[in-house]
């Protein structure tokens, strides 16, 4: 950790929290003016590397020196905008930074295939804006600022999803529907923040919590809670506010899907945790009620219904998108337990799920890149024609089911333990049934890939083996490998998740 903390010179390290947001924003403008897609990609790559390094550095700083509070522009909180990093958001920064970097490496061949040459520079620019927005949501300590960054990332997300229209025009309608719902969600959130401001007279998250603790929670606060939960729940694809997600993931460019699936909903989920636990206190009556009767129930229903829907999808990416909704359900369930163990299980699953879904969507992207396939039945025989990508896909999908030797198992272990600790046997049953449903939909994908024969080509001969470009293969294999590696070395992730839960629950 000391090594990470001293990764950067002190002069830069002090400003790392600001730089991690500002660099991508500025670079977005730079990328927009690049004459060629390749150059814009270069800019994006440099930015992503910088962000990854900064996030590692911040991890080092936080774990050695405790909470970082950075006063933006020298205006001290609570009046000024504060960037605040503690153990809860550091895993998210790390996740966005590192998975973002892997996705950017993956992007070059994928984007070259899917986006028109003229638009590539603008595409990368929009991506960087989205990247900055996500990092901003994660790092800011100011409630209104959360809204602003949330919208920065969302608006750019709408555009990059719509760019999938080159392959399938349904990307446009998917993006439009996301825009309408996303805006409603954001507006709900901002209403909630407004009420909180009325009740507390401050926008600083830490300050809000302090004032609320002093003044107690009146009805305005309760209204604020409801609005914020709905708003952020929509962004985090909390069942039944997830309807925008399947189409958006199914028709966006592959790189975008891989990136969003492993980061965007996670960041919104983080914001939800931040508000529910840090601003409103988990021991306050209405919050505690919402755990059992809202988050846990919604989580369980999502685990069942969305998994069931996933089983019957014909489009491979839509299938995994429904699976994502179900996995968000796991996290909601963990949150709904309202205990430190539940929250840390939920955080652990958040990170692990990013590893799985990143690899899965990248592999689907690789299939699409080489053979243009997107439906489940078109995956037939890819085990023979693209063995490496198929292997990575297989590892990640077994992880999704929770088979041992993969991180999915670790997630499930901690979730079940937390449920037992809470005495929620029904939640254990729900987790297991949902795992079996996951097995069912994963089996459809895997049996198509490995058990079917590849369709004969035009001349009647089976298509030859085709290796995906190394820039696709490398990040995908790395993520797949991480799925196994972090099973054997669960300590770092479990440690991060525990620390995150303790940071907001105040335990140790």
């Amino acid at each position, binding site marked *: 950790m000391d090594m990470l903390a001293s990764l950067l010179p002190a002069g830069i390290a002090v400003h790392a929290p600001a730089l991690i947001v500002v660099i991508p924003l500025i670079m977005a403008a730079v990328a927009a003016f690049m004459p060629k897609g390749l150059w814009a990609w270069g800019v994006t790559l440099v930015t992503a590397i910088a962000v990854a390094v900064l996030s590692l550095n911040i991890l080092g700083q936080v774990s050695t020196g405790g909470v970082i509070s950075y006063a933006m522009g020298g205006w001290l909180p609570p009046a000024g905008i504060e960037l605040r990093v503690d153990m809860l958001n550091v895993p998210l920064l790390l996740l966005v930074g590192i998975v973002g970097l892997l996705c950017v490496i993956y992007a070059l061949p994928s984007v070259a295939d899917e986006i028109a040459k003229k638009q590539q520079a603008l595409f990368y620019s929009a991506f960087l804006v989205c990247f900055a927005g996500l990092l901003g949501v994660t790092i800011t300590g100011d409630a209104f600022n959360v809204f602003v960054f949330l919208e920065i990332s969302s608006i750019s997300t709408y555009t990059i999803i719509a760019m999938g229209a080159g392959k399938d025009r349904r990307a446009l309608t998917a993006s439009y529907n996301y825009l309408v719902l996303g805006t409603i969600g954001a507006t709900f959130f901002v209403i909630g923040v407004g009420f909180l401001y009325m009740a507390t007279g401050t926008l600083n998250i830490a300050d809000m919590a302090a004032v609320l603790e002093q003044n107690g929670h009146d009805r305005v606060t309760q209204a604020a809670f409801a609005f914020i939960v709905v708003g952020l729940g929509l962004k985090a694809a909390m069942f039944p506010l997830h309807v925008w997600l399947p189409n958006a993931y199914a028709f966006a460019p592959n790189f975008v899907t891989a990136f969003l699936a492993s980061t965007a909903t996670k960041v919104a989920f983080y914001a939800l945790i931040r508000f529910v636990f840090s601003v409103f206190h988990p021991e306050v009556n209405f919050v505690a009620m919402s755990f059992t009767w809202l988050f846990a129930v919604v989580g369980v229903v999502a685990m069942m219904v969305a998994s069931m829907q996933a089983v019957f999808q014909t489009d491979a990416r839509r299938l995994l998108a429904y699976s994502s909704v179900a996995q968000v359900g796991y996290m909601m369930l963990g949150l709904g337990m309202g205990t430190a163990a539940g929250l840390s299980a939920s955080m652990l699953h958040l990170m692990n799920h990013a590893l799985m879904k990143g690899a899965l969507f990248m592999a689907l992207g690789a299939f699409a890149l080489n053979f243009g396939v997107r439906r489940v039945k078109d995956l037939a025989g890819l085990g023979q024609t693209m063995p490496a990508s198929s292997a990575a896909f297989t590892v990640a999908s077994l992880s999704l089911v929770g088979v041992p*030797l993969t991180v999915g198992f670790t997630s499930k272990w901690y979730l079940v333990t937390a449920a037992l600790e809470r005495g929620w046997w029904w939640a254990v049953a729900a987790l297991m049934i949902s795992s*079996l449903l996951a097995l069912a939909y994963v089996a459809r994908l895997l049996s198509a890939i490995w058990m079917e024969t590849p369709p004969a080509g035009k001349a009647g001969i089976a298509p030859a083996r085709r290796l995906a470009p190394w820039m696709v293969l490398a990040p995908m294999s790395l993520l797949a490998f991480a799925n196994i590696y972090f099973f054997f070395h669960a300590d770092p992730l479990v440690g991060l998740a525990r620390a995150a839960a303790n940071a907001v629950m105040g335990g140790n």
Partner: protein
Amino acid sequence: MWTPELSLALALAIPAIGGVAVALLGKYPNLREGATLVSAVLLALNVAYLVEIAPGHPVLELATLAPGLHLVFRLEPLGALFAAVASGLWIVNSLYSIGYMRGNNEKNQTRFYVCFCIAIGAAMGVALSGNLLTMFLFYEVLTLSTYPLVTHKGDANAKRGGKIYLSILLGTSIGLLLPAVIATHFLAGSTDFVAGGLLAVNEVTPAIAGVLLVLFAFGIGKAALMPVHPWLPNAMVAPTPVSALLHAVAVVKAGVFAMLKVGTYIFGPALIAATPTSDALAWIAGVSIVLSSVVAMTKDNLKARLAFSTVSQLSYVTLGVMLASPLAMLGGALQIVMHAWGKITLFMSAGAIYTATKKTEISQMAGLGRYMPWLFIAYTVGALSIIGLPPLGGTWPKLFLMQGAWESGHGLLIVALVASSILNVAYLLPLSARGFFSAPEEAKLKKTPPMLVILPPVITAAGVLVLFFLIGPLRDYLAPVFLSSSLAAEAAL
């Protein structure tokens, strides 16, 4: 130099290295099969050493996943015995596989041998595991690694069988076994196998233990307790060497072995006896024994008949565990050994008949004994052992089980055991009779079976005979496990 720890690690490493070697030598069939045989022999030697040192309980820590979650090997007599059976029969079966796979010109032989190595490695992992978590892990690896073997033929039938195989085994293990494992961890703070029973030592109430017992009994799908048995008959679409070693020895025995180990080291006999569900489970096992024997009689396909016979015989072990008396559990443990040798003989005979004649139905096999006398003698010896006639190994487990049933006050279950033996006679021996005494349909065999498919069943049949006389040492080797564990459990309660 040659430490117990090294030996434990080698039990896992030899099959793994063997698998890699086989994969690398895929282009040279002779070298490839050589690699398989060498690994089999080395593994057997290594396990022989392990059997010797088992009473010392050496421990090998494989990995720490997270605080409180360890992958550990801890040797004890039961595991050593299971490892010995699996690795010993691997040698015989490797010889047989070579004859069978070449004799039938099977495709993808390299994949076959690689998966075989992994499956044996996983069986070793189950055998040596020191806690439930480790056992669960290797149990799943065993399921996944045998899936390509089951679907080896690749046709629609094989895929259908493979689907049922995988969905039942993974479904039960994830849906029932995993929660049971995690609940054990939650209740007891660890999943270690402890003499006297982890749950008993931690004073878990019999009611909760009863729920867990049900989860374990059905969650360990490989033990094929009815109604989670259908995977086993469906797995018979696999080539015969797979059915022989895996679905008569490694996989199914891993299941009942896990059951036995859970019964001995997680619950402890006293706690099992105290649970409200153990009686019901004992009866379910009894019903499984009789019912699947009856089903076996209706099957004309030889492998299907043997498969249902296996379902029946496996429930003997589960029955032994549920009876929870030292004698019954000893009977269960012996059944693992004796049934393995007997059943592999039968399966290898079935495969040899198929290689020679391409016949799979019993009704077509009239008079074949005249062309393959040694094979049919071996088959008959194996069948008699399964039935439980002296002087063959299969006698002992039945005897101990009956005594155990009497001892624990379940005299009525003896009827089930006797009925099953009679049914065994009725469905196993007709083939011998038909083979020797009916007139053959054809004047001669289509093709002379290779030596390598005839010899292995003869060897194992001889083994069955020898095992009858080895009962003394075997009992002395195993008895302390059950006696001490029941004593310790009684002390704890």
